[in-house]
């Protein structure tokens, strides 16, 4: 009986939930749609709808029940599917046909009650098929006429280099998506991610899709807990780096174990195999649920101050070291997220001029995942956005890590204005973008070759 749980442990756990915003950020069910491919669009849409609503019928109720029984909120229940460009290649003769698939996904998501469904995607790191290009060109309309569908495009990898034709196209698509959703501060772009080295098993939106290397269905879980880490660090102010790192590791372990438990339980109850835990520190706009506040607690006046990249690198590494022991299957993005609009501390840092897009780019070299939820002036040129995408993708390609870009060119707004996305997506001050041109660079057709993997400097 000596190993029984004691009252201080119970109070510690419950305090994390009640006061430090500990939660499980998402249970994401990955569903393969490869067997739904058909030459007839209506047939294919019917198969897609049936497969999703059958597999995920009990996802939301099961997630809520697990949350009640363990006393830990499970904030989001979501679905990721096979990249639709692969599934719809035969049936979708044009971009309008692909939009019909997006509507089917949206309808299925609403039927089962999940708040997002990801996988309106194309994987074009080396080249685009006609179907890939049709899907990509349909993204603005698809994002405008659906509520819950998320889209992602993988434009490069360490093994293939960067597909600059796709990078250039995504600069144009970002602006068109912004225009198609300008009534809502260009919200469509908040549901669109451009990746390099996209993982097959990421449970977090907007970039989740169910990779072709995955089983028919899988449960992936994303944990969270910036507030828990921040509170733990308040108790070690002024201590040395060893104490600092130990504290982060122990906290990350505890957070990840909660995710592991929830993932196993969800897998058992839903009869769907467990895939991975994504041990990311994922902030929300709520005060006390911020990665930026952790950086401040570590010793920075504001995120973006000198030392930010080093502090973030240390934080990210300790989160991984603590989390990896808590679960045998870690995957997805796994690191600290630094979205601007979804993190009150980041919003404040941008508003006060402490944090620029260039510093954010540097920070993405040492953490997951990229330039995320950053509002930029609505008159930013497509080629400039393509240049930013190319820079971020190059960081991922050279450093063998996932990087992503989710920029929102807010139509009709400029520096000094604020974009409002609502809910978990938050709000963001418009950040200035370098005004010098990269037109001639991004207009070059072709690919940037894969990098050499030796001579590391």
């Amino acid at each position, binding site marked *: 009986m000596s190993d029984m749980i004691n009252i201080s442990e*119970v109070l510690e756990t419950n305090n994390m939930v009640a006061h430090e915003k500990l939660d499980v950020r998402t249970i994401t069910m990955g569903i393969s749609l490869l067997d739904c491919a058909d030459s007839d669009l209506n047939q294919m849409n019917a198969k897609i709808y049936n497969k999703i609503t059958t597999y995920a019928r009990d996802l939301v109720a099961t997630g809520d029940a697990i949350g009640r029984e363990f*006393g830990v909120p499970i904030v989001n229940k979501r679905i990721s599917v096979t990249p639709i460009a692969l599934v719809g290649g035969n049936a979708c003769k044009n971009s309008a046909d692909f939009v019909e698939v997006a509507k089917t996904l949206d309808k299925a998501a609403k039927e089962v009650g999940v708040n997002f469904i990801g996988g309106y995607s194309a994987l074009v790191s080396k080249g685009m098929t006609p179907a890939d290009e049709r899907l990509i060109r349909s993204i603005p309309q698809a994002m405008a006429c659906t509520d819950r569908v998320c889209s992602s495009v993988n434009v490069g990898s360490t093994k293939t280099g960067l597909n600059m034709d796709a990078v250039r196209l995504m600069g144009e698509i970002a602006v068109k998506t912004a225009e198609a959703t300008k009534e809502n501060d260009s919200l469509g772009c908040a549901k669109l991610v451009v990746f390099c080295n996209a993982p097959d098993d990421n449970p977090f939106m907007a970039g989740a899709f169910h990779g072709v290397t995955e089983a028919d269905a899988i449960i992936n879980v994303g944990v969270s807990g910036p507030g828990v880490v921040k509170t733990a660090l308040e108790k070690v102010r002024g201590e040395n780096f060893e104490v600092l790192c130990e504290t982060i590791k122990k906290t990350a372990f505890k957070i990840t174990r909660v995710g592991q438990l929830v993932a196993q339980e969800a897998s058992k109850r839903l009869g769907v195999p467990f895939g991975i835990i994504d041990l990311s520190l994922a902030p929300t706009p709520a005060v006390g649920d911020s990665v930026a506040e952790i950086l401040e607690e570590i010793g920075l006046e504001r995120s973006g101050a000198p030392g930010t990249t080093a502090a973030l690198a240390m934080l990210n590494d300790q989160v991984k070291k603590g989390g990896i022991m808590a679960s045998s299957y870690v995957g997805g993005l796994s690191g600290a997220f630094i979205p601007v609009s979804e993190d009150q501390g980041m919003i404040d840092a941008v508003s006060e001029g402490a944090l620029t897009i260039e510093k954010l780019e540097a920070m993405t070299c040492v953490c997951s995942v990229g330039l995320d939820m950053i509002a930029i002036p609505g008159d930013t040129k497509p080629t400039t956005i393509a240049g930013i995408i190319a820079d971020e993708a190059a960081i991922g390609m050279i450093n063998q890590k996932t990087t992503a870009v989710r920029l929102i060119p807010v139509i009709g707004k400029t520096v000094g204005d604020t974009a409002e996305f609502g809910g978990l997506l938050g709000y963001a001050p418009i950040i200035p973008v370098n005004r010098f041109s990269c037109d001639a660079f991004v207009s070059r057709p072709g690919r940037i070759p894969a990098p050499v993997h030796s001579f590391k400097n």
Partner: protein
Amino acid sequence: MSKIIITIVGKDRVGIVARTCNYLAENQMNILDITQTILQDYFNMMMIVDISRAEKSFDDMAKELADVGNEIGVAIRCQREEIFTSMHRI
């Protein structure tokens, strides 16, 4: 064995333990351990309870225990034990 952790938090008064234990006994739930402490004038109690012989669903049990708590002015909450063992035991 299926175990839950019951936590009770509130102003100390006569009958908190008695009322809770009555409910558990009536529903075939066996108490394995009880700890209590007073934190900042608040009564904090934790019970480890074996519910393998109980017939009620978790949600019914949680609701009825919360109702018992409301009657006597304390917050009673139950959670499955695994959340704590996962977090605090390697």
